[in-house]
């Protein structure tokens, strides 16, 4: 057994590289930009970086939950977009308070989540397919009550009347307000990251979710209510999307028809990258956060260097790939491990 002990020490060394290779990339990039761009490392710009990471990170956390149970929630972006419309409608069309708007949005999220869950666990449609379908549906449905228009106060309704309401100041503060100088979105993001991390890796529920992702049949035969929890994971995912949507709409200050649509791939990207950081090799909250930060750093840094937007896509992709090379290629032996019994 001494031999096997060595194996694990070896593994530990490998893990170190895998674990920190990615973080090193992030930090290195940060330092690089901080040096080349004096304005980069200022507290103001760091905060705004965090702030722009927040929505991606929060959506990414949603995706993470769906990945933990072995699926992938493709409806996350459009769900965020739906929230934007719901919030705007509630306040502008129906002249209700921001609190109401938030509740409406969260309820909307739960409903979407439940619909995904039903399609997947009751009707047995593969996760990817079901959520892809929902993505299209939501994208369309969300625009029906607003006649495909961006909702803004004072807009004229079909009946010719003018929309009575406007955005709550309180609601606008969700994105703009700060606590001890830290923007609320950043605080919300951190709270959700810590919560997700705790739930996933410290609670029995999280353990069940991972079990379902690892081997649903074995989980079922161990008495885990697979369908229930598989479905709940998608409800969580959708609720996270709604929270992201709330921040988005509070940022835009009006119901933007297209908001959220571009978030999907980025959210999936950070969640996927998240699986490869910290050497955990499975979806996890901190990894997702790190992924979001990395992307935010790259975008901000490059814009400050005055590069064209399309160079940023290139960089985003390259960084992603480099990070993956670091993890997967270094820790390749782990993956190759094929138990023989």
């Amino acid at each position, binding site marked *: 057994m001494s031999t096997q002990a060595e194996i694990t020490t070896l593994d530990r060394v490998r893990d170190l590289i895998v674990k920190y290779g990615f973080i090193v990339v992030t930090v290195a990039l940060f330092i690089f930009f901080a040096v080349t761009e004096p304005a980069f490392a200022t507290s103001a710009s760091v905060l705004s970086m965090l702030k722009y990471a927040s929505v991606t990170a929060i959506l990414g956390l949603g995706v993470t939950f769906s990945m933990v149970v072995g699926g992938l929630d493709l409806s996350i972006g459009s769900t965020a977009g739906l929230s934007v419309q719901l919030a705007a409608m509630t306040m502008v069309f129906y002249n209700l308070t921001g609190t109401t708007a938030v509740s409406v949005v969260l309820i909307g999220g739960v409903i979407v989540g439940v619909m995904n869950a039903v399609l997947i666990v009751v009707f047995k449609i593969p996760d990817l397919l079901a959520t892809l379908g929902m993505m299209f549906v939501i994208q369309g449905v969300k625009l029906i009550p607003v006649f495909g228009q961006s909702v803004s106060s004072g807009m004229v309704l079909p009946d010719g009347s003018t929309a009575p309401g406007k955005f709550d100041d309180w609601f606008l503060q969700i994105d703009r307000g700060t606590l001890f100088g830290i923007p609320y979105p950043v605080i919300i993001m951190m709270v959700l990251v810590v919560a997700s991390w705790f739930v996933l890796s410290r609670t029995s529920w999280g353990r069940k979710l991972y079990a379902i992702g690892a081997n649903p049949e074995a989980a079922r035969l161990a008495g*885990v209510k697979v369908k229930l929890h598989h479905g709940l994971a998608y409800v969580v995912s959708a609720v996270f999307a709604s929270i992201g949507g709330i921040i988005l709409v509070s940022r835009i200050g009006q119901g933007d028809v297209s908001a959220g649509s571009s978030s999907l791939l980025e959210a999936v990207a950070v969640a996927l990258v998240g699986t490869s950081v910290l050497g955990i090799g499975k979806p996890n909250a901190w990894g997702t956060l790190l992924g979001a930060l990395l992307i935010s750093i790259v975008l901000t840094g490059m814009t400050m260097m005055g590069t064209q937007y399309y160079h940023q896509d290139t960089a985003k992709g390259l960084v992603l790939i480099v990070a993956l090379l670091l993890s997967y290629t270094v820790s390749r032996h782990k993956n190759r491990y094929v138990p023989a019994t």
Partner: protein
Amino acid sequence: MTTTTDENWALELDSITIAFGANQVLKGVDLKLRPGSVTALLGANGAGKSTLIKVLSGVYSAQGGTVRVDGDEVEIESPSDASKHGIQTVHQRIDDSIVPGLTVAENLVFEEIARGEFPAVSSLRRLMPRARTIASTLDLDWDDSILKQDVFHLGIADCQLLLLARALVHRPKVLVLDEPTSTLSASEAERLFALVEQLRDAGVAILYVSHRLSEIRQLADTVVVLRDGKVVDEQAAPFDLGVAIGAMLGREALEEESALQVQRGEGTALSISGARILDDSALVDMDFRYGEVTAIIGLIGAGKTELAQAVFGANRLEAGTFTLDGKPFAPRHPSTAVDAGVFLVPEDRAHEAMFPGWSITRTLTVPFLSRFARLGVMAGGAERAASATAIEDFGVVATGPNQPVDALSGGNQQKVVVARWMAAGPRVLILDEPFRGVDIGARTELSLKARSQAADGACVVVMLSDVDELRQVADRVIVLVEGEVRLDAYADEIDDDQIITSMSEVA
């Protein structure tokens, strides 16, 4: 280049070594196979048998040592190299060789497809003749409708037969069988033995891995014992299997199975009435009592798994009601059964009990998370302690509670999945084929555990298809044939012949 050997061996392995990371699994294995003879490879779980075989078949390439075929040194870098040199292998894990989504026929000819022995363009129809030929080598009575269906419709045993046929059709120089009977019924096994003997007489050198001594007695000309990556004993017939087992386990063989003290329990734990187990079988009633080990024995397809899973709430029977301690018991989901203290150790541990990459600790605690959680928050300490104890009690060979279960050998994996349920103090414990791919040492330990659990008042039910295994563990015997009870008696009231005859009598 040829070497000067006193005798011409079909296959010579010379100090083969291989390590995974720093885990030296094979530490210099020497092995010679005579043409026209059967060499049995014995070894405890984790001894390195499957690994050695994977070296032979080109799955892993040896890190040290040489391989000679007919005296010529050869490089075996890939599976196709192996078959080029006439080495055919049936691996232990069926699921590593079956391709779901392809038809039975395509699976039969798959190796030839893989090696490009088929024209690049070939419709299923053009594959059929070859497929029929291959099936016929084992005279499998598969008509075209079966050959054309998705291989996933096949039972686990049929898959095993498919793979055997696939290997045999090539008339190999060297045939390697890694625990081929662990999923076969007695009759199917017999058919296999006949075939093995026929091949041996045709001059094939056969390497045969099994944990079933009866088979080895029946088939083997030579016995080689592998222990911790080295050959520790080599015998020509007639064998002293006691010595062999001693060498294999590194201690004296355990007490004779007949030393088993039959205990009669009292108090019905679980009773089954009016149950239809298979599609069109008659209704059956059964009672299972506390304080004794009941073995349900039957061939594959007898419906043992169906019954077990129904009691555990994992699937439903067409008809039948259960009562537990006299109260009606109708589990809709395994969770209900678990809460009621009715546990099942499933048949196929890889697919039904293990989580890829999960540690021993996590694997052990899944069903009982609430016991290790306070307000839903896991108490890591309690968990680790519990698994340390389990590893201790069940003698699991592992680096520690954090080792991934899939890095253990078959026997130790089985110990873990059994320990998971036994440690939790079951009222009714059902074990479905708990000894599959488990060496005698582990088997004995597991049997003793099961019996002591019964002695402590639990109701233990074991699903088996092997009489030796039954003798080792059971107080009471129920013979199941095509979903119907043929015999129900205490182990000391009947002899093996009665059991075997009733097992194979069909209505």
